[in-house]
């Protein structure tokens, strides 16, 4: 019923062929949904038209960038219209003097950095998926990345967002001036996972490339030692540009793909980067080396060239993808814990996986305490999925008990929404629902995400159950 309406505009911009629709039924997470139609807007007015049409028909809509989300955020429910931004992928303008750029939401993160390169600038948030994920998706999930440790997640790098609100209006949230009077609407939009509207244009901050960078690889014979090193680096007041940890299974899988010289026999490696002016870089690098050695680092390797550095990062950034080399499926959490508690938390979550007879591995933004415990399995094994879920829940409970949160960067989406009640009280969730209801009274913007069932008012009457064949 949706597609014909778009066809009157231009047939290339909407599709409803079943095979093609099925390709939009999920993102890089596990959940499957069902799209009713999919459209490919070229500008804000196309998006506004799509949203207005949905509003008229009472059909839900879901924004989708590259579909690399890991929480089912872009998974359509209830035959929603999927609004895909891949054809809105231009860099509109770069202002090198103010170090800002206006971009369209479908622009890939890495393409933005490439466009900024000639000016000696780059876009700081660098999710491991940066080659593939879109700026719109980054804004919607408030994406982080290894280098967000010192520079902050996406929200710290977005100055303004032009968005089509759930009622079909186009609004400019934020401004080139630092403080717009009133509420920080830009701030609430970033990280709203497509539930408060669809970004159609984004003003991002660009940052100058650091004059000096030192990348270091520290390897350890035990996970405890590596985790203790992370805690000690933070406790010493050092703020590396990036501080990442990979355990032995991940390291081996990654090494098979990139051949960067990661030690296959280490129990854990830390990839640390410090940047800035030479004095600070040297000082921090030597402190980190010292701390590493004091905690049992077997070797501290310094990248000697830019290409060696690139290769090390390529390894880290391929980690999730490389998992399939071990088992065909993975279930991933994204909890954050206080960095002072890393040793204990890590130890327990490995124990939890063991107790369920599951293989768990970890590759994560250690400097932020942002864990990515990853349980690998083969869904074809009977009963394994129940164990995976049980272990996942226990792991999260342990992280929350340590003073942590559910998600550091991937978002809540569809997959983690049921767990929200473990972190927030009913009153907390009620407020979040009130915020969503205020901007989206009919509950059509990416419904069924983030908030657990039963909190939104627009929910009544919409079939919130997952369709047949859903596997989550």
């Amino acid at each position, binding site marked *: 019923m949706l597609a014909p309406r778009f066809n009157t505009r231009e047939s290339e911009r909407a599709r409803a062929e079943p095979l093609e629709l099925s390709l939009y039924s999920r993102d890089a997470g596990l959940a499957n949904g069902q799209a009713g139609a999919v459209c490919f807007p070229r500008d804000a007015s196309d998006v506004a038209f799509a949203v207005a049409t949905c509003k008229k028909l009472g059909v839900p809509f879901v924004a989708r960038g590259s579909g690399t989300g890991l929480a089912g955020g872009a998974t359509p429910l209830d035959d929603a219209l999927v609004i895909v931004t891949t054809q809105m992928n231009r860099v509109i303008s770069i202002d090198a003097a103010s170090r800002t750029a206006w971009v369209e939401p479908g622009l890939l993160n890495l393409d933005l950095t490439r466009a900024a390169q000639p000016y000696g600038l780059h876009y700081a948030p660098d999710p491991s998926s940066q080659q593939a994920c879109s700026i719109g998706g980054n804004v919607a999930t408030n994406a982080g990345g290894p280098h967000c440790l010192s520079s902050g997640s996406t929200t710290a790098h977005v100055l303004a967002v032009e968005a089509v609100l759930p009622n079909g209006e186009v609004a*400019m949230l934020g401004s080139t001036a630092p403080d717009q009077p009133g*509420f920080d609407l830009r701030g609430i939009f970033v990280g709203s996972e497509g539930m408060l509207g669809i970004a159609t244009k984004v003003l991002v901050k660009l940052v100058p490339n650091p004059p000096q960078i030192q990348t270091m690889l520290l390897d350890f014979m035990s996970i405890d030692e590596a985790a203790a090193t992370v805690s000690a680096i933070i406790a010493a007041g050092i703020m590396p540009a990036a501080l990442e940890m990979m355990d032995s299974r991940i390291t081996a899988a990654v090494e098979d793909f990139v051949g960067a010289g990661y030690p296959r026999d280490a129990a854990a490696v830390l990839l640390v980067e410090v940047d*800035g*002016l030479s004095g600070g870089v040297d000082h921090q690098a030597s402190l980190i080396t010292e701390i590493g050695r004091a905690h049992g680092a077997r070797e501290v390797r310094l990248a000697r060239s830019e290409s060696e550095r690139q290769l090390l990062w390529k390894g880290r950034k391929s980690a999730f993808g490389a998992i399939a080399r071990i088992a065909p499926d993975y279930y991933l959490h994204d909890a954050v814990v206080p960095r002072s508690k890393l040793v204990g938390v890590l130890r327990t979550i490995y124990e939890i996986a063991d107790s369920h007879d599951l293989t768990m591995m970890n590759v994560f933004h250690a400097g932020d305490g942002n864990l990515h415990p990853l349980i690998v399995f083969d869904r074809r094994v009977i009963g394994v999925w129940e164990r995976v879920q049980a272990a996942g829940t226990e792991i999260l409970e342990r992280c929350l008990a340590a003073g942590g*949160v559910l998600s550091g960067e991937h978002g809540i989406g569809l997959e983690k929404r049921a767990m929200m009640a473990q972190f927030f009280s009913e009153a907390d969730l009620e407020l979040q629902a009130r915020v969503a*209801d205020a901007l989206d009274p009919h509950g059509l913007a990416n419904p069924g995400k983030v908030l657990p069932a039963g909190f939104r008012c627009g929910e009544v009457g919409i079939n919130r159950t997952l369709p047949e064949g859903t596997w989550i």
Partner: protein
Amino acid sequence: MNSRFDPTVESVNASELVDPTGSRTHSGLGRRARDGSIEISAPAGIVSHDPDDLVVTVLAGTKVSEFSDAIGLQKQFVPLDPRSDQATVGGVIASGLSGVRRLGFGPLRDNLLEVRFVTGYGKLVKVGGPTVKNVTGFDIPRLLVGSLGTLGLIVQATFRCRPLPSESRWFTTSSEPGGALQKMFRPTAILSDSRSTYVLLSGEAVDVATSCRLLASCTETADVQLPEGPHRGRMSVAPATLASVEMQLRATKASDLRWLIEWGVGTIHLAADSSTSIALARAIAVDAGGWLLIEDGAEDLDPFGVTIPNLAIMSRLKRAFDPDEKFARGRFG
């Protein structure tokens, strides 16, 4: 939830109109009618400071001076930088005024992790989360920054701390500020008034020295003070327009107008002996596509001065937090 907050929740529930109050150091901001409002203050005190994790939780009624001293003992800081350190932490959040170190340490909102507050419908809620990175639920803490008491009574906040830099020094320079900004790597602040350019450099001593050498001249100076006067305002314009805005400020020939520009940020702190000069400055700001917020005095001027963008959206949000318009009635719709 937490008995410590019960009295605040009760007082909010018992009152028809509420005026969340801190130390009144920013009371000129956004001016409001107080008739019949009950002033309610948040409790004070440091709740917890985990220096190894660089995170601190503080009750909103705590004075910034006490807060800074407490975490300073562990050689850490949070760049709140209010005009007066007698301001309360909650007041700083609600006023949303970032300090002059924003260029280096980011705006206030980027340093705030979790907030607990009492809504207009009388519930104590938690938004955000206590870790340095978090996307669990909507990012509501940012809405509270600069909400000027309209969304609720802030009772507790969690911030990320930073280690005190080994060196942090102010310099004056004859370099032109815009050029200095392009040349230097991560300066903490570049300011200028009608006479001079000021640069704040923090980090290792060698790096401070290296950065200095990039400037035409570099003389150490005392801390830079914000302009003072009976009428004060804060201008917010696109950083790219700062040079031309400054030229226009000079062109007003208003001899009582004093300013301090934050380069790379786009904030201009203004003070004047007469509100007419502030009005002149506001016209320049509006002309440049920006705003001028009255911080103090200038009673004859509207506190915001222009139609607030997206007011309709804001009023819908305001009603979500405060359906009966208990808090700061009339502001933001």
